[in-house]
């Protein structure tokens, strides 16, 4: 069923009786060509592109709970491609381009809103680093713009520029950055994948991999064995748990990142803004909630909840730059499990087991990567070679000393 304004009107006039489930609820088949483990944003995007771009007909996504229940539905919805390093920037720019055409590709309005993202600069050293980054973005074909304090004040007149502990000295903007309605991304990919024949199997947890002579033959699940020529794993924060079933240890830790939303407010923030001298970034959703976050709690956790110090740290950052937010109320806080890798960059690679592929290590940047991650993983699964924008995301880069460390924090995941 195609969605359209016409269809909405027609259904409204006929009692909404014609709407069909957005995706089927199929019984798992015994054998697929490709099984994608993980019905989050990345897994569903992978399935969509496998079916639509790479002509794979027999694909299943298996999800232990309900699709879209992990980080794709628990993030601050930001998209951007303002990366520095060669290994990253082309990939994220590719992702941004896919975002720009997502709705037409999926026939689903995920509300991609290129409201712009602004990183504030508070020191000369930061200006130098952001200049280098902005140049890297432009040299990679992305957009970047350096803004003066005056430019920024015009856009955000209520920013604290008078009494700031760390004065604002400018900002690096990416006008094509913005936000997307996160749940809609999962649902849009799911609906499209389903319409291209992908089986989306919910409430089906992987309990093991069937590996014979170093070759992965499929997955054992709570709904029985499901055979596959290739198995691709995209389970974000649960990567270490899943891959341990294949006796793999990964270069990553799972950490909790909290995010926050305020009560609904009439529009105040036009775009995404990031504080450079504390831990705070913020945008405003179409519903009016301020969506904001900051740093990790800092300790390994699978609990999907955090503690007060991180909340306070973020709100202190909020008040430092927007003292007018004092009387806005924080409505809800939640925590996601971040697959924090050892250099802050992801892995999209084959494993040492034939037929077993891995996608993970997205840290807290997985949402914006969703389209490119799905595309690149689909490329790898379909063609057995990495997508040109994702060639650096290899497992062996740590052993070889080819880390992709945007923040320069080294092998301590909670610092990325």
């Amino acid at each position, binding site marked *: 069923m195609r969605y359209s304004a016409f269809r909405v009107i027609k259904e409204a006039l006929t009692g909404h009786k014609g709407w069909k489930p957005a995706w089927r609820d199929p019984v798992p088949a015994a054998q697929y060509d490709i099984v994608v483990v993980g019905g989050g944003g990345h897994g569903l995007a992978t399935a969509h592109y496998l079916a639509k771009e790479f002509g794979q007909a027999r694909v299943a996504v298996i999800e232990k709970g309900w699709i879209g229940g992990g980080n794709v539905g628990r993030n601050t919805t930001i998209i951007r491609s303002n990366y520095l390093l060669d290994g990253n920037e082309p990939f994220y720019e590719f992702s941004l381009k896919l975002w720009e055409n997502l709705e037409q590709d999926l026939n689903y309005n995920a509300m991609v809103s290129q409201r712009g993202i602004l990183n504030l600069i508070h020191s000369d050293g930061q200006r130098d680093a952001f200049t280098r980054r902005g140049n890297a973005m432009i040299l990679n074909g992305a957009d970047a713009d350096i803004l003066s304090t005056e430019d920024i004040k015009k856009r955000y007149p209520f920013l604290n520029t008078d009494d700031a502990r760390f004065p604002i000295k400018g900002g690096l903007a990416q006008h094509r950055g913005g936000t997307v309605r996160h749940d809609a991304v999962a649902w849009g990919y799911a609906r499209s994948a389903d319409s291209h024949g992908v089986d989306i199997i919910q409430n089906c947890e992987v309990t093991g991999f069937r590996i014979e002579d170093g070759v992965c033959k499929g997955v054992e699940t709570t709904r029985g064995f499901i055979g596959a020529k290739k198995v691709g794993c995209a389970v974000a924060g*649960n990567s*270490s*748990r899943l891959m*341990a079933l294949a006796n793999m*240890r*990964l*270069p*990553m*830790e*799972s950490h909790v990142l909290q995010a926050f939303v305020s009560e609904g407010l009439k529009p105040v923030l036009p775009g995404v803004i990031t504080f450079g001298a504390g831990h705070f970034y913020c945008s405003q959703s179409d519903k009016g909630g301020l969506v904001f976050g900051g740093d990790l709690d*800092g*300790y*390994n*956790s*699978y*609990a999907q909840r955090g*503690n007060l*110090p991180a909340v306070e740290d973020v709100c202190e950052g909020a008040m430092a730059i927007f003292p007018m937010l004092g009387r806005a109320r924080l409505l809800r806080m939640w925590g996601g499990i971040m697959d924090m890798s*050892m250099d802050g960059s992801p892995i999209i690679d084959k494993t040492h087991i034939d037929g077993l592929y891995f996608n993970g290590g997205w840290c807290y940047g997985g949402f914006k990567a969703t389209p490119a991650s799905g595309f690149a993983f689909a490329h790898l699964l379909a063609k057995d070679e990495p997508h040109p924008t994702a060639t650096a995301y290899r497992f062996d880069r*740590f*052993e070889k000393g080819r880390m992709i460390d945007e923040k320069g924090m080294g*092998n*301590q*995941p*909670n610092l990325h």
Partner: protein
Amino acid sequence: MIINHPLLGPRDSAEFTYMGDARLMDRPDPDAPDAAAAFYDYAYLRDNPAGWHRELWFHEAGDRSWLVVTRNTVTHEISAVELASDVARAQGRT
């Protein structure tokens, strides 16, 4: 969270700085023939369990002790807290 410091008693985890898996105390022998592989494993690979995890916390705003905390990463329950220097000695480090 509350970390029950072996010397100081219960202290808020906000006083501490977290480093990660206590395996980081098991620094490999740099002179072993497989040192390169051993250091790669040591520096980069993690069990990252969903469950009990032995991990290093530094009492930065306290007595400056490194502690080995055994904590459940699913429930955050803490079952043991030891001084890292005691653990290191017990493991034969000098």
